[in-house]
Each structure stands twice: as C-alpha cells, then as structure tokens.
C-alpha cells in the first residue's frame, strides 16, 4: 500500500460528559492509529469509555459530551474542524457505523429497500440505479433473496438478518473506516458466528479499516489485527493481537485474560483469577497509575507517578513494570477435590416434562418430553440458543409455571407438585434460584437485611437471635460485610447485588439451586469472583446446581454434566468433558464451534443452514433436521431419532451411526 495516511487517528483525545453541571472525563489522553485496511480492536469492561471512543470517531457525541482535548483525524482530516456540510459528506462517504441491537437501528416504519437505497441516494448514484445497487449490496451481505427482503419491514426480519441489513448500509459507500460497536452482542451464538464470518469475508473483499469495539476478548481475538485495551478512559496497552493474548504487558490485560474461564479448566482444578476492587469513579483525581489500586504488582512508584505509554517492538504498555504482568500470582486451589457425582444419588428427577402455552392453533409446545436426572452435589449445565426452553424448564422446576399433564417431577424420591403453592415447605426451600439480573431479582425498595430476614423467617422459621446468626453467616458466606446489610440494591454494584441474590438463594439451605445466567449481566472480572463463589459454596454445602448459560466457557468451568437443548428438547446429555470433546450431536458441534474462544481462532466452523424455527412450527422427525449439516434425506425429516448411548450417561438423540457423529477437531 502506498497511501500511509492512517484511516483513523486519535491524538491525545480526551472526552468529557457534563452531568448535573459537573464535567466527568470519560476518555483521557487516548492516542491510537488505525492503518488503512487494518482491523483494530478496542476492549474493556463496561464504563471504560469504548463506546464513547466509537462515537467520537464519527463526531457523534451525546448532547452533554464534548472533546476537551486532542484531535480526531479521519484519512488525515481533522473532523473537529469540519463544518456541518463537510461532516455530512464525511459520513456519507468515509465513515460508517454498525452498533448493537439492530432491531432498533433500523427505522420501523420504512421498508428495508427504502432505508438501504437512501445510502445510494446520498452518495449521488443516479435514481435509476438505486434498486439494482440495493439488490447488489444486500446480496453482498449474503441475504439470499434481496428482492423479497427489500419489501419487508425491519420487524419482519430476524436479528441476524437485521444486522446484515445494517452492515449492508454501512459498507454500501465503501467507507475508509467502519466502526463496529458490539455488533454481535445480544445475538445467539450461531447467529453471532455467522455475522462475524460475514464481517471477515467482507474484510477480504473491501479495503475498509475497522474499529471493532467489544467487551468480549474472544471476539476481538478472532476479528482483529491489533488490539487496544481501555481502562478507566485510558489506553493501557496496545499490541498485535497474538502478543496481547500470549504475552500481555499490562497487569490489567493479564488479569482480564486469567479471569476468563478457558478450555480445559474446571472448578475442580483451580479457582479463576479475579481483579479485586472497583473501577475508579469518573472524575476521581488519580495521581499515579489509574490501575494501581487494583494491581497485584503495584508499588509506591505506581501509586505516585503516572506511567508513560512505552512502546517496544510494536507492543505498547502504560505500566512501570510491563515485564511483571506475566508473573501475576496465580491462586491454586488447596488440595483440589475430585468429585464423585456419578455415584451420588439422584436428588431431582424430571420425566416427560412438557410445557405448552396458548390454546388451539396458537398452542406452542415450549418444552417437549424432557427427561433429566440431577444428582446430589453435581452441576448440570444447560445450553442452547434463545428459544430452546432453558428458562421455561427452570420455572417449571421452581413451580412458577405449571407443567402440562403427564409431566412427572420428583424431589428426593417424592412427587413434586406443579405449583409452588402446592408443594411442602421443605420442597420449596430446597429448590431455589439465582436469577440472571439482580436488578430485577432484588426489590429496589427493600434493604439487603430485610430480604435475607424475610426469607429465613418464612422458609426456615428462625426468629430473633437465631435468625440474626443466620443472616451473619450468609453475609460472610458470600463475602459481604455488615455494612452491606443496611444498603438498598441501588447502592451496590452489579457484582455485590448478585452476591446478595446468592445469599438470599442460600438462606433456606437449598439442595437444588438453579442459576439462570448468573453472570451474564456482569463484567468478566466480576464474573470470575461470582463463579468462584458458586464453586466454593457447592464444595461446602453439597448443593446441586442447574446452570443455565449461553457462555460455554462458564458452563464448562462449573459443570459436571451438560444437557444440550434445542426447541424445547434435550438433544444430548453427558459428562461435561465428553460433550465438549465429542463425539457429540451435530447441533452440539455447531454450537461449540460458533462460540469464539481465545486460542481457537483458526478452527473450522460447523455452519448451520437456515434460520431457527419457532416452537409453533416445530419440524417433524428430528427437530434439528432443517438446519443439520449432516441430515439424512428421507429419514431425519420423517422419523424421530433414536437415543444413542455412547457410554454410561452420555446419550445423544440422532439418526447418525455412532462413528459418524462429529468430534471436536
């Protein structure tokens, strides 16, 4: 390439928001460069300023936001100096953006065709060519029937399709810079994988530079050439992707990486690393290194002097001791306990569990003939895309939903009634849940103490001093302090709130605890602490977990066994490691290969065909045959598959012969 002008340059960029008359810095002195055609990833946890950086690149800050120092250059032009017409011209031709939640990014009352062709109109394409160009660009983002889609409204398309349309609009003008802000967050794993594939494919075709913003390290690792790590509005490290992930030179980056549950690690071996403490409050005056308060290797120098951004061999780090980052102390679990879940007795038995909603034509079977056994002290992971019925299953087990007639639930050998109200107190206290979102699960007008006390009184029947003792024990158990008991939920951070929810769930000493996406609302560093806590509590109390998560790393770390669900049916169940390694169900193979994992970038992906059917139009025969890459014509579509027992406790519902089942390559 002869043109060496960077596509995007941040020169010492600072951005601040005015909140209630006070200026709060969000970005502080960020400098970076994205070369033409390069894909640059910006990672960081929530509140680090990455979205602000994305919008600043298009000079689109909220009304209370402003660039307080520094410059932003696109293709060498300072966009801060541009008059409105020039800025519009820039947005029409040189920069484009795709963001999270494509359903909202498209105008609900205009057809897709009208919205896409607007881009050509703005680019000055003759009117007669709009339609043809629209078809062409939609085909480019792999929409199979562009003519049809052009006549549709956004709400008539699936999330994946909507995002393809948004991408089509963004690349239509062949921009110099494409900003992608969490473009796949909120999409299902298989859809996310397809969209990421598409972006990679387009990169090869177009010369566009990409600024890729994500909280997901694995996605960044897969998509980007170089990576910058943001912490509290500062760029703390920057390097080529491989170097960042293999040899991080900032303790924060190193910490983030070791927080992630990764392949081959499970709760039995070692707890996850965590990053103690909290992000500094925006506007807080920090004299030394911004990360010093949370850093395991910080010393007095770090606390007093802000480190410079030092570059060596293309690897830059804002740390006094970059070489120490790799030598972070690793906590090993004392005397890792080997679990013996296989021999343990069943605590919860689920047989023929079905659940339907609606009547007549509207009737939808969300769960169909589920049969699962949960053993004492084990963790059963439940995976599957949205709409697979995981949460409905959880609600049936808890008695919040009444299962269909003929469903059978047994707890400790005794039949379990469908609704909470019809269960004995013992049964109710024994099966509890940690909900996904603590903001929803904790009553915002009650104190933490009140929530715990009420649960203890009602379910355990303790009063007075005995109750107080139990409150104290629970508080300590989840590593909260006395001070937190008097707090309202809004006074606590996300991680602390989830600890409160866990304490409440453990208040009645449950034997089965359902964890419904317990960490999906949390940042990775907080997630690690919560997962460690759950593992510790299980070791102490021998509670059984049903763990629902879309994050396969989390499931793999905590689970002893895994059940894979699709459209309300269990397609595969077995020991965690064998389900991961295979042979497994073709759907499991697709699901596993679509989740990006660090160190797994080059792996071949199992691609699914077609879109996820709904339970209203459940396919005949094998439910998965409409999307299965290994579907056997004439058989899978007509006949329900048999159960293949690969080994004791590893069961797969599939027509394929056992030796044709996919294995993780």
């Amino acid at each position, binding site marked *: 390439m002869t043109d060496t002008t960077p596509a995007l340059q941040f020169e010492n960029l600072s951005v601040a928001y005015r909140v209630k008359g006070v200026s709060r810095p969000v970005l502080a002195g960020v400098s970076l460069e994205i070369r033409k055609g390069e894909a640059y990833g910006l990672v960081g946890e929530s509140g680090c300023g990455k979205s602000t950086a994305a919008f600043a690149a298009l000079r689109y800050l909220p009304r209370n936001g402003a660039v307080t120092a520094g410059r932003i250059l696109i293709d060498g032009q300072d966009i801060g100096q541009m008059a409105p017409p020039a800025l519009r011209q820039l947005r029409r031709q040189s920069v484009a953006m795709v963001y999270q939640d494509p359903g909202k990014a498209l105008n609900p009352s205009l057809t897709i065709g009208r919205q896409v062709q607007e881009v050509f109109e703005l680019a000055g394409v003759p009117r007669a060519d709009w339609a043809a160009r629209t078809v062409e660009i939609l085909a480019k983002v792999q929409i199979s029937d562009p003519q049809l889609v052009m006549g549709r409204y956004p709400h008539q398309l699936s999330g994946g399709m909507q995002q393809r349309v948004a991408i089509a609009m963004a690349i239509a003008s062949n921009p110099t810079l494409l900003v992608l802000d969490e473009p796949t967050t909120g999409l299902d794993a298989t859809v996310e994988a397809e969209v990421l594939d598409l972006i990679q494919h387009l990169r090869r075709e177009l010369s566009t530079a990409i600024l890729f913003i994500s909280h997901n390290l694995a996605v960044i690792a897969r998509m980007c050439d170089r990576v910058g790590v943001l912490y509290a509005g500062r760029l703390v490290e920057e390097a080529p992707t491989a170097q960042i992930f293999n040899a991080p030179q900032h303790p924060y980056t190193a910490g983030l990486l070791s927080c992630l549950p990764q392949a081959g690690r499970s709760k039995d071996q070692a707890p996850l690393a965590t990053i103690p403490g909290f992000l500094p409050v925006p506007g807080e005056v920090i004299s030394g290194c911004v990360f010093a308060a949370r850093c395991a290797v910080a010393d007095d120098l770090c606390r007093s002097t802000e480190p410079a951004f030092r570059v060596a061999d293309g690897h830059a780090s804002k740390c006094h001791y970059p070489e120490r980052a790799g030598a972070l102390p690793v906590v090993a679990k004392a005397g890792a306990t080997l679990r013996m879940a296989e021999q343990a007795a069943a605590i919860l038995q689920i047989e023929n569990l079905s659940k339907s909603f609606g009547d007549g034509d509207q009737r939808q079977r969300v769960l169909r003939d589920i049969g699962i056994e949960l053993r004492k002290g084990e963790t059963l992971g439940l995976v599957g895309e949205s709409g697979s019925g995981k949460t409905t299953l959880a609600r049936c087990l*808890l*008695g919040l939903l009444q299962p269909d007639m003929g469903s059978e639930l047994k707890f400790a050998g005794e039949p379990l009634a469908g609704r909470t109200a019809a269960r004995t107190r013992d049964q*109710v206290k024994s099966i*509890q849940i940690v909900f996904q979102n603590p903001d929803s699960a904790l009553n915002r007008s009650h104190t933490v103490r009140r929530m715990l006390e009420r649960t203890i009184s009602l379910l355990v029947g303790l009063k007075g001093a005995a109750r107080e003792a139990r409150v104290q024990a629970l508080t300590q158990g989840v590593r909260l302090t006395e001070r937190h008991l008097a707090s309202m939920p809004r006074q606590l951070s996300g991680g602390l709130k989830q600890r409160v929810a866990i304490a409440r769930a453990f208040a009645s000493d449950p034997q089965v605890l359902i964890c419904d996406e317990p960490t999906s609302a949390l940042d990775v560093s907080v997630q690690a602490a919560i997962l460690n806590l759950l593992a510790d509590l299980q070791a102490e109390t021998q509670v059984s977990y049903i763990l629902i998560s879309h994050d396969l790393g989390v499931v793999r770390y905590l689970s002893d066994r895994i059940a894979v669900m699709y459209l309300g049916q269990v397609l595969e169940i077995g020991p965690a490691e064998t389900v991961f390694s295979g042979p497994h169900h073709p759907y499991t193979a697709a699901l596993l290969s679509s989740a990006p994992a660090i160190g797994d970038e080059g792996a071949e992906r199992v691609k699914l065909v077609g879109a996820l059917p709904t339970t209203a139009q459940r396919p005949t025969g094998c439910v998965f045959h409409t999307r299965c890459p290994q579907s056997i014509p004439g058989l899978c579509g007509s006949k329900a598959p048999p159960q293949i027992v690969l080994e004791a406790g590893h069961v797969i519902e599939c027509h394929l012969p056992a030796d044709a089942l996919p294995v993780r390559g």
Partner: protein
Amino acid sequence: MNTQTAAAGWRGDLRRLSRSASFDIGVVIVLFWVACALFGPHLVPYDPFADDLLNSLMPPSFAHWFGTDQLGRDVFSRVIVGARDILTVAPIATVLSTILGTALGLTMGYFGGVIDEALSRIVDAVLALPTVIVALLALTALGTSNITVMVVIAFSFAPVIARTVRSAVLAERGFDYVAAAELRRENTFYILFIEILPNVLPPILVEATVRLGYAIFTVATLSFIGFGIQPPSPDWGLSISSNYGLIGGGFWWTVVFDGAAIASLIIGINLIADGIEGLRHD
C-alpha cells in the same frame, strides 16, 4: 456511579425539585390558597355573606378591592373564603379515588386473567364517558350535596388511577423479585402491599396530583352548572355562575377574580405534578 445515586433519597429528590422554578411557583400558589381556606374567614375585611344592597355592583375601589356583587357583598372577601369548599371537596374526592383506584389497579395487575378482564371492562365503560356527563347523570339521580359530589368524583376518577396503577404493576410483575417472593411462599397481601406497592408509589403520586387538579376542575365546573357546591357558599364556580349574566353590562369584576382564583389554583397544582413527573424521567 452507584455511590452517587445512593445519596439520592427522598431528601435528595426534594432538593432537586425545589431547584425547579415552576415547581416552586406551584407550591407557593397552592400554599396560598390552602392558607386562605384555613384562615380566610378570620382575615377578610368583610363578612363574605353579608348583603349591602346600597353598595351593590360597585367597581373595585379602596374600600372594596375587588368591588361588590349584586347583593353588595365584598368580592375580595368572597374570593378568599371561596377556597374553602372546593379545597375540602376536591382533595377528599381525590384521596378516595386514589385509594380505590390503587386497590383496583393492584388487583387487576397482579392477578390478571379473568379478574383483570372483568374489571377492565368496567373501567373502560366508565372511561368512555366524560366525567362531567357521568357526574350530571349521577347527581341528577342521587341529588346534589357536597358528599355526593365527592363520591361521584371518587368513583369516576378511580378507573383512571386504576389504569395507571395496573400498567405499573404489570411492569413490576415481570420483575424477578415477585417470583422470588412467591418462591418463599409469601402471602398475597405482603406481595401486593409490601413488595410491589412501594415501587409503584411514584407514578401513583404523580397521577394523584394530576387528579387533584382535575377534581378541582370538575368541582368548579359542576358548581358553575349548578350541580356542585350549593348557595350560599362563596365558591368560585358558583359565584361565576350567578354573575356571568352581568358581564354584558360591564360588571367584569364579579367574575374575573373568581376565574383567576380557579385558574391559579389548578395551574399551581399542575406545576407541582409536572415537577414530580419531570423528576421521575430524569
């Protein structure tokens, strides 16, 4: 970020409210009329009920700031004391309708299903008719008195409040803390009044304030058409009703001050409601 929001409680809300000029103006106006209603009879220069036919229909002067009416009564004294009846009837009616509407809304929102369906029909039916018409119908059948006016307003406003509460409860119903309460076998009363109610209080408060404005609007209107507060009260609507025939003759002061009184009181209350509403959406 969490530590900042933590500082904001009721006290913080009040402090932020008092910084809004329109809210402050609303409070001042309303407090003024409340003071008039409470202490007016002791403060006014003339007996608001005393006829003085020799001095009837006098224009405003030093002796009579707002002039006199047909019977020679002092308009200023009547306007001040006129706050009494309306500031009794309207707030009581509002409190009654808020209690009724909240109970109804909690029931509809929490239980849903057939109960909600049935109650919603009734609510819709009441809402299909303008309050003034409903009141006319009911007051014709029941006879007019301050009590019946209160009851009629309470019943015709309750559905609006019920609808607001219902939708707020439906939103709360979707939160997992309600499921968590069910999972510790909490009784329905506790779930409704201790778990859900505190979280839906802000919208109820706004709605009740807005309703108070409407209650005053409705009482004044009913009094104006002869179905509300009855003579010899110096009520504003009533005074306008008995004097507006005179404006053709240029006796504007017999109606203008009463009108200004009604307008200021209702605007004041709505400025307060607007302030609280704005706070919720910040």
